[in-house]
């Protein structure tokens, strides 16, 4: 059953086209990584899914129109926009009271359980918490909601590596149960690669790549080519080539693994490497650091 279904999703801000007719579908129980450079339209797409922005085209989330039915959709959808949206004046206990008071699917005991594993005090104001602790609090609130779709827009932006790792670990261990759906955008692609079931690249408001991780792994191969085989490897039309420590690393799409194994060491590329290859060398050079 589709959790999200979009057909011809468009959105323009003045003359800037943020979404240029997206067609995609996310099935229930999947974890989709939405990857793209800054300004590619990722956040606009997520905002459309969440009913936060107006759009043209067709969009159904859990069978509802997010724009006109946002408040009802939010019974079944959770989102973490980024770490800085929790009200800074609020106390932790007030946040628990409020969400418990307005959300029919919030399990307060569960949230308290998650918080007990942290050093966050109930009486603290959110402005007194560190960025990492705010992320932990938001995650505790969200994981205690029995939602069907969780949308994460750069959820770990600005967190140190320990908090980032912990964030995705608890998400996977304590939350994801194969019936829920998660859509995540992040620049720290390598940190989410192992949890994704699907990956989608967007650039300039268009989908550049949309495939499952199984397809990804069978389709794309990266070969660290032995120097004597470089010419032979290039003849197989790699989609990208880069040099690391004087060795050529070539990225292939739809080339037989056995054939490549003869040329060098074959492995599955990281999403980040494929992203750089697909987005083109110029864009890639500019975006490489951000990935």
């Amino acid at each position, binding site marked *: 059953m589709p959790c999200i279904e979009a057909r011809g999703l468009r959105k323009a801000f003045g003359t800037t086209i943020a979404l240029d007719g997206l067609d995609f579908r996310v099935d229930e129980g999947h974890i989709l990584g939405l990857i793209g450079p800054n300004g590619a339209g990722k956040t606009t797409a997520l*905002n459309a899914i969440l009913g936060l922005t107006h759009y043209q085209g067709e969009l159904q989330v859990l069978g509802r129109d997010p724009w006109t039915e946002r408040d009802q959709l939010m019974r079944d959808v959770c989102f973490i926009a980024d770490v800085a949206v929790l009200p*800074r004046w609020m106390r932790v206990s007030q946040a628990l009271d409020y969400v418990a008071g307005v959300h029919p699917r919030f399990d307060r005991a569960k949230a308290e359980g998650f918080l007990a594993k942290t050093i966050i005090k109930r009486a603290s104001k959110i402005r007194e918490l560190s960025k990492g602790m705010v992320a932990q609090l938001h995650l505790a609130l969200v994981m205690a909601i029995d939602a069907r779709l969780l949308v994460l827009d750069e959820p770990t932006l600005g967190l140190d590596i320990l908090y980032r790792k912990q964030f995705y670990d608890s998400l996977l261990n304590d939350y994801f149960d194969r019936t829920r759906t998660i859509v995540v955008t992040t620049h720290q692609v390598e940190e989410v690669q192992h949890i994704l079931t699907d990956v989608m690249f967007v650039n300039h408001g268009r989908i550049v790549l949309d495939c499952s991780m199984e397809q990804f792994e069978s389709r794309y191969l990266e070969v660290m080519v032995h120097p004597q085989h470089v010419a032979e490897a290039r003849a197989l039309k790699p989609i990208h080539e880069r040099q690391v420590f004087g060795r050529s690393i070539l990225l292939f799409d739809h080339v037989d693994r056995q054939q490549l194994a003869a040329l060098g060491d074959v492995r599955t590329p990281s999403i980040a490497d494929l992203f750089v290859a697909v987005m083109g060398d110029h864009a890639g050079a500019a975006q490489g650091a951000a990935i």
Partner: protein
Amino acid sequence: MNTPSDAVPESPLAPQEIARVATMQTRPLYWSIRRELWENRSIYIAPLIVAAVQVIGLAISTIGMAERRRAVLLLDPAQQRAAIEMPYDIAAIMMIFTVFIVGAFYCLDALHGERRDRTILFWKSLPVSDLTTVLSKAIIPLVILPLLAFAITVCVQLIMVLMSSANLLMHGVSPATTWAHFPLFQNWLVLLYGLVAIALWHAPIYGWLLLVSGWARRAIFLWAVLPFIAIEILEKIAFNTSYLAALMSHRLFGWAAEAFAFGPNGRPSIESLTQLTPGRYLSTPGLWIGLAVAAVLLAAAVRLRRYREPI
């Protein structure tokens, strides 16, 4: 606000959904109002500070009160009453003015602050409709602040009566002169009636401020006020008339003439409950036009909030 009706979903749902929602007992409106009070503590702190100042002022005025009271008792009964009642009336009027200012500034920030600090993304991630959110914000100046003003004024006046009675007793003057001239319960009834009349009369003002707060990106106060000043200047220069100014003034103060029948001396004091004119107030078109305008402005604010994003 703590009624079961809060648990009723805001739009039609399948029967089993209604059952589930009802068992979970969410009360979005109730919790949204509490949320406003958590965030905007000035809603009750400002009236409490004014109350404290009033009590301190009264404490200072008790010095020499007995002598003044003896002098007052030489006057004719109407003047006696006016003199004794005056501080109490001033306390009540100051509190009414305070909650109007607090309510106006609260409304100006209500739908702007959540966009400025990006928390709108958090509020919108919860199953609370824009209607509930805007209503909870409109309820603060329309219901919560008048009730607070009433409760605090009652407390202040009680403290004033007790303090002055104790002071008079110590100086050998019977405090009965206060009690005889100052029918507390009747005054409280007048106060409550006045607060309700003012809140309903001012509803379109709050609606306008909320709408501007949800619409303007910056300089909310200027957007709320300047259009009226500009139109008034235009009207004055072009036609040499002041209809808009008269309209504004009527909206701010017109409730008084409709809700009360003041004495022939023009003094704004209420000596008898017969001076309350709820019939005239309720039948004046100004009230109903104002409420209709308020409803339109609030509906626009609800509609607008759907489009709103952090600024």
